[in-house]
């Protein structure tokens, strides 16, 4: 079993498959491109399944490790491995890719092959980010994944797509290039190693720790995104096509949060402890202030985008309280948010495909014409506001519990999100779905077709399953989170 390089497969099957899809060429072959893309996406998911079934939950060590020399000149290795923190994201990523391919099936009529290929390649690159154990390898995947998303937003996006695409790219590039300098510094300090695991053990004085932490904070903070560097996200979300928004919300945002767990916290624990109040403050601002911002949005996608920022604030909050509940809750929240925000964007996509508007004011009474859709949308809206029995509840509850241990007032402020989240999500839902049929467009709406039903139903199952029985998720990460906390408790000075 262990001889098969599943991680490499998870990375390269979608990428090479994407190249293959690209080779189908012009739109005359669009049906072929779609089917091929679907097959590749499914194959990409299938190769990640053994990562979960073969995962040893009792160990916190890296598993499925692959190590090969890549650029010996700088001691850069093709070093892959997953632990309990990262393994779930590979599955989530591969899974979301299937949803995206399905969601773009009919909507995308132009340059189909390029669209599908972009998502498949992106999926492979992001798997690379989650499994890289070499600093440069991580960075390479981290940067390269910007290219397909830039193209997706720019080519298939809305009115203001060019601005959004370039803003997205430059924001993330600035952050990650500063991180590159931190990586090079660590390379030098560790006597010529780019191995992340070596860096975890590397003793560092306080001053460089703080600087490295700040470099990482900018890189990952932009990606998460944290307040006040979040402004690229609403733009990107609004302009991106549905598939782009889904990947952005479900996976791309997790890269930043994952970076905190893999880099910032274990490599510079002392700085992380010292600067935790800063991060917690920024997180709480994101949770509360951005929650209020979401409340006043008139554009559905923007509203969900702000809700994402607010939810991701919860994630960073969970990390920097340094207790088991907080970190595990945050990871659960990340996965749940992957399902829920993906589903929310897909739902908005379903409406947008029919009416070509994202404005809340253009809707009303959708339940009368699209009852099946309204039911699914209801479930996801509830999950987004953190209703018990949905996946959204589990993570938020764990983080709030963790926060109570940490500091009552932090917990109190964090818990406000439960009210705010419900307020903006359900108010939006009410205005869109209930009430009288608002206009002729809504009156002519057709309910979801079998394809749309399929992906919404699968996501609904995931949301419910995770909400009712989160054990399979927490079980996987337990040992690794334990180890992380033990590691962080020891000073590196």
């Amino acid at each position: 079993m262990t001889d098969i390089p599943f991680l490499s497969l998870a990375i390269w099957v979608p990428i090479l498959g994407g190249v293959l899809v690209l080779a189908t060429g012009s739109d005359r072959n669009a049906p072929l491109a779609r089917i091929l893309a679907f097959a590749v996406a499914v194959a990409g998911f299938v190769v990640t399944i053994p990562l979960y079934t073969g995962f040893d939950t009792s160990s916190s060590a890296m598993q499925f490790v692959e190590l090969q020399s890549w650029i010996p000149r700088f001691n850069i290795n093709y070093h892959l491995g997953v632990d309990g923190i990262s393994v779930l994201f590979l599955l989530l990523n591969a899974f979301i890719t299937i949803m995206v391919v399905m969601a773009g099936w009919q909507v995308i009529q132009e340059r189909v092959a390029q669209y599908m290929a972009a998502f498949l390649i992106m999926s492979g690159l992001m798997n690379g980010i989650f499994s890289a154990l070499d600093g440069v390898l991580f960075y390479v995947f981290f940067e390269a994944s910007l290219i397909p998303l830039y193209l997706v937003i720019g080519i298939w996006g809305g009115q203001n797509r060019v601005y959004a695409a370039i803003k997205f790219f430059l924001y993330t590039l600035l952050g990650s290039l500063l991180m590159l300098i931190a990586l090079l510094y660590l390379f030098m300090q560790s006597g010529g190693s780019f191995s992340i695991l070596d860096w975890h053990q590397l003793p560092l004085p306080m001053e460089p720790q703080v600087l490295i932490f700040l470099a990482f904070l900018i890189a990952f903070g932009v990606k998460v995104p944290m307040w006040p560097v979040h402004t690229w996200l609403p733009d990107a979300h609004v302009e991106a096509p549905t598939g782009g928004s889904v990947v952005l919300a479900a996976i791309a945002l997790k890269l930043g949060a994952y970076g905190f767990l893999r880099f910032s916290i274990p490599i510079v624990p002392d700085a992380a402890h010292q600067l935790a109040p800063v991060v917690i403050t920024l997180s709480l601002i994101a949770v509360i202030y951005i929650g209020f911002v979401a409340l006043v949005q008139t554009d559905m996608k923007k509203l969900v985008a702000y809700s994402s920022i607010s939810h991701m604030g919860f994630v960073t909050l969970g990390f920097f309280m340094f207790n088991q509940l907080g970190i595990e809750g945050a990871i659960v929240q990340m996965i749940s948010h992957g399902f829920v925000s993906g589903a929310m964007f897909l739902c908005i996509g379903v409406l947008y495909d029919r009416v070509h508007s994202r404005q809340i004011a253009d809707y009303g009474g959708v339940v009368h014409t699209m009852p099946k859709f309204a039911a699914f949308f209801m479930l996801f809206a509830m999950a987004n506001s953190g209703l018990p029995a949905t996946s959204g509840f589990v993570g938020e509850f764990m983080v709030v519990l963790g926060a109570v241990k940490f500091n009552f007032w932090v917990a109190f402020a964090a818990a406000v999100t439960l009210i705010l989240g419900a307020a903006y999500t359900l108010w939006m839902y009410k205005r869109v779905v209930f009430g009288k049929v608002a206009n002729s467009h809504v009156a002519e709406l057709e309910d979801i077709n079998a394809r749309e039903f399929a992906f919404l139903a699968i996501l609904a199952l995931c949301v419910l399953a995770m909400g009712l029985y989160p054990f399979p998720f927490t079980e996987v990460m337990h040992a690794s989170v334990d180890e992380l906390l033990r590691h962080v408790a020891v000073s590196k000075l």
Partner: protein
Amino acid sequence: MNFVVPDFYPAAAEIFVAVMALVIMLASTFARGVRWLGYALTQLTLIAAAFVTIFTMQGEVSYTFSNLFVSDLMGQFLKLVIYFSMAVALLYGRGYLADRNIDKPEYYLLALLMTLGMMVMVTANHMLPMYIGLEMMSLALYTMVAFDRDSGRSTEAAMKYFVLGALASGLLLYGMSMVYGATGSLEFTGIAQAVYNQAANQTVLLFGLVFLVAGIAFKLGVVPFHMWVPDVYQGAPTAVTLVIATAPKLAAFAMAIRLLVWGLFDLAAQWQTMLMLIAVASIVLGNLAAIAQQNIKRMLAYSGISHMGFVVLGLLAGVVDGDRHFALNAYSSAMFYAVAYVIMSLASFGMVILLSRAGFEAENIDDFKGLNKRSPWFALMMMFVMFSMAGIPFFIGFFAKLSVLQAVVAAGYFWLAVVAVIMSVIGAFYYLRVVKVMYFDAPEDTSEIRAPAELRVLLSANGLAIAALGVAPQMLMSLCAYALLASL
């Protein structure tokens, strides 16, 4: 006094190219009607010269012609890259020149003489051949820029290039004379010896150094000696721009290594400070000015200035507080950057040539509009080039930046790395804009792309090489390091 016959063996390639240049001159005189002859012979000469260089390669450093000439691995490696880039550049440019009816044999003759000049530069161990090589290269280039003699813009560019180039040569010569005055030697090893023994007059020496750095900076095209770059790049026929933007950068790099590292290594602290100013100014100005450009040749010119700034960045990270063990790492990363830049630059101007045709110059960034609709394949190739230049992985440009930044960080210049990185983000903007017009905009010009098959094939190979070398950069990196190791 007895006459010693020098050892010709180490200089076999130079002699071969010189002889072939004469052969081509004669052949093109006697066979005027055969238009392809000059081109074919030149290409053959470049290929054969590569073989000669490889077969006469010696592991150790050897001197000949009374120490005027040095044959070492760095020189041979750079010569090979120079042949390669000249051959590719001539191939890309051929159709372009034919469309404008200027593909005369003389053009290829000049290109070959220019190659010879560069070869002399990279193998010079003495101020005199260095200067001769430099002038040989430059004079051939001035003429090539003016080759489209009916074009006012080309003539203007050539004039500008010539006047400023002559000024720079003058500065360089002045610097050389001062160094000679201070050290009593024109030979690099002799200069190094004199400086090491502190036998030289420091004031004169430092004055000379300033002028030498100015001369090198002019040839590299870095701030503050960059003024000619955008004008000449824009004014010259694109095929010639392609030549200017590639191989001469390598020759200038070799000049920097020979003059500064071989000759004046003990003054590293001084020239590194100068290079620091040059590097920062080039990276900042190059990237900022490129944003404002509408003309793609001008944009690439400014981008070239910033890339050369990165090369200089690698050159200045060699010695830290008198500690020299960073030198190999730093200079080899600079060399890797220069080679990577040549490969990217070839492809970028190759793309401009691809879109040009008889009676139409693809010059503006807008000429790339909607390229993805017209030719998805070449849009992809151009995207590779742009992302590579912006330093995004998996392309060679990223590893070039990585290795230079690594050298800079290892030398402890964090602020330099931060400046370089922030300017890279600003630089990414204009590369992204090219990708934007290709992919996000509708085409204005929907005519089919007509280009010779060899251009299409080689340009595709060039684009793919940028990606392939980004996935597997080890070979080229260690070649650069190995070539320098033997020469330092």
